[in-house]
């Protein structure tokens, strides 16, 4: 079967790839572009481990097809830090140990970043509902929620 030739922007850089019709965006990121920070937790859009930002919107990359992404702008965990400078959310997760096994963490960071871009002053309830699409089995979410609220406050102050 013929492969699709796709040109997209990933983390600010133009990339070209060939993909099969059935390959998801997640497959393409992990297998074709070697961006393995985005994880597969369920492949049904229920766990958020594969969260990326597609043209400004938070999506589960397991639910989009790689062939659909011609001209798209995609942001993944690998593009969150600017060089060696961590995003404030990454820095706070590090300071507060808001992660344990780390598997769901890229999805949480990407989702939280997108939340704060849309809503710089979320309530705790808004943070909990926004992140309810991301499953974590280790942390009980407590430190994640605290960290996002703290970063929101710090970013508003700066």
């Amino acid at each position: 079967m013929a492969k699709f030739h796709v040109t997209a922007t990933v983390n600010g850089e133009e990339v070209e790839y060939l993909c099969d019709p059935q390959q998801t965006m997640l497959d393409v990121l992990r297998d074709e572009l070697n961006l393995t920070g985005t994880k597969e937790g369920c492949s049904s859009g229920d766990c958020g481990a594969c969260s990326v930002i597609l043209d400004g919107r938070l999506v589960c990359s397991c639910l989009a097809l790689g062939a659909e992404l011609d001209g798209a702008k995609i942001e993944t965990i690998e593009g969150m830090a600017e060089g060696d400078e961590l995003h404030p959310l990454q820095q706070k997760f590090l300071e507060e140990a808001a992660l344990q096994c780390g598997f769901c963490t890229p999805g949480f960071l990407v989702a939280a970043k997108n939340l704060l871009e849309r809503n710089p002053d979320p309530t705790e309830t808004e943070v909990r509902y926004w992140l309810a699409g991301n499953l974590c089995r280790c942390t009980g979410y407590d430190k994640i929620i605290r960290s996002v609220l703290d970063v929101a406050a710090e970013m508003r102050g700066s």
Partner: protein
Amino acid sequence: MPADKGGNGAQSGIGAAVRRKEDFRFITGAGRYTDDITLPGQSYAYFLRSPYAHAQIAAIDIAAAEASPGVVAVFTGKDVAADGLGGLICGWMIHSKDGSEMRTGAHPVLALDRVRYVGDHVAVVIAESLAEAKAGAELIDVDYEEYDAVVGVEAALAENAPQLHDEVPGNLCFAWELGDKAATEAAFDRAARRVTLTFANNRLIPNAMEPRAAIGDYDRGTGDYTLYTTSQNPHVARLVLSAFVGVAPEHKLRVIAPDVGGGFGSKIFIYAEETVCVWAAAKLRRPVKWTAERNESFLSDAHGRDHVSHAELALDADGRMLGLRVHTRANLGAYLSTFASSVPTYLYGTLLSGQYDIPAIYVEVDGVFTHTAPVDAYRGAGRPEATYLVERIVETAARELDMDPVEFRRRNFIREFPHQTPVIMNYDIGDYDASLNEACRLVDYAGFADRRAASEARGRKRGIGFSAYIEACGIAPSQAVGSLGAGVGLWESAEVRVNPTGSVEVLTGSHSHGQGHETTFAQLVSDQLGIPIENVEVVHGDTDKVQFGMGTYGSRSGAVGMSAIQLALDKVIAKGRRIAAHLLEAGEEDITFDGGSFQVAGTDRAVPFADLALQAYTGHGFPTNEIEPGLKESAFYDPVNFTFPAGCHIAEVEIDPETGVTHIENFVAVDDFGTIINPMIVAGQVHGGVAQGIGQAMLENCAYDPESGQLLSGSFMDYCMPRADDLPEFVVGMTETPCTTNPLGIKGCGEAGAIGAPAAIVNAVTDALGIRDIAMPVTPERVWRAINS
């Protein structure tokens, strides 16, 4: 260095909230989990699984699959058997009360002629791509003869029930007992009051966020096998795969467990999939990779809990406990998983004394096979079931005696240590009043009546529930567990390698899959050797690097793994003192080691640790015919006893009677884990454990259709995992009585939350509703029905 890559320098010793060294790679997407690894020439495995709970395989036709595009090979149970591989094993022998050995049938890697649960492994297709492997699997023609199935313990024990294994008449694996039956009966005979309760401990699916995965590799030049896998205990995997399954000789098999995305028990066990990957890699002379899809995790990861219990508590006229009698039926699933038989027996019955001075206890446990996925250890493993039983019946007894549940607990607490329970355990130390009092303070128990009145005024029902749990961690000593049927020792190993520059590598047999060992273990080394934490590297998860180890489960890594490191560190310091005596021209007895420096006591003559390390490797400054050059020490630590973390969890809930929705208003966890190395990491362990405990109590339930044996809760849409909007902020408190039986005083913290929380929630809900019992999970529907029945 622009980015903070972890490590706080000065404040890095025991008790400091050091940032986790492992986190930089995780927050940047640079973690390296098994599925992130791609080997050259890698092929992909897909397992064809049984769609039936119980069926005979009359025939399998693989010809079309073998001819399918991209398919490299198709294997069935016959191929595995033809290569002489053994079946999967259970490493703990349980004896029934009549002295007979537990009964079990064979557990083939791939099914031979019978499948026994939905998801059982029928065949594997290996192809150039996963899509081609799946397409090939669709072409396998299996002729199944479907039989009746049983999924619950009562049904499986019924007369004429469908039979799982020819070797196991009546589906009864064992009928085990513990305790003094006659003494317990005598206690009940003289009791002024008896309280009884019959309930289930609901079946759970672990669901670590990283699905299980494996890559088998084989080097035809050297004959070396390598298995990358999501394991909590890679050395045990290597031992089982070599000594029992016979995939490869132990010295030719390297097992690597890289970053592992959570385990909670489910990654202790040795499963069919990794066995097939490493076996097939050698057959095909190329790497074979398998990663579970989430539905496979639901179907085939070992599940947890699933007990039905009847409990009776005998009390005297003053509300003092006289005896506890328990009969439990434990669902083991279709086959005995790696440690399945120990969970509802020695990890359960031995904890039934709880925090209470109960003179007589007798417990019977029937282990039962059913046509469901194997059941094994899941966070807490037997101890959550024990705590749930004890704390539910204790709360019920307090209500029936019309006593305050706090007062009732205080009246029966153990206060003198060491305390020998009637069920094997010897508690070395604890202070149960302290954790109860602190939890009551943090939840403001005194103000509860007012809060309840305020809720009532708003038409809501408020309740409070207590759970004074105890657990046993660091299962040991090896000789004792061996006498109880364990097939392995339960010590831990450590090696401390000091480099010539004074930096240190610590090799540990423990395995970190979220627990933060790279940080806490480094904190210990930093503290003891007086070197910066940045100069310490913790190495684990690779059988070629670490000689042997028992892995991480049962909250053992702090209490056992770190004790082994401490012993190795003691040896390093002892050798350092001998070398320093020569370098400083003093008697060895005059050399002290403190603050990272060896010095002659009472003088300013000193040699810093790093300088001594270099001297140890040059061998210039001491007689190497008396002291070997180099600075590297190892230790195997076998504990003399379990450790006994304990604490008190209190849940306060408010229920909306219109909808049946329960809202957690407060959740307080006060725990006594002994010595704390890193309070930030410990708090996270408590949070995560409590979340899983609340999940069991309010949300999660593994359900099989009782007729067909189909898994009904086989996706995240059907199995309700706790999400961020389901959980409250947790209040965590600590008390501390250091363990008396290990060098650091550590008790372990990994499972306490999952052990303590369920009873606290259900006690709170039943308190709010004024009812005796309600089944877990306490869903809105169940609560609504309880209110409206």
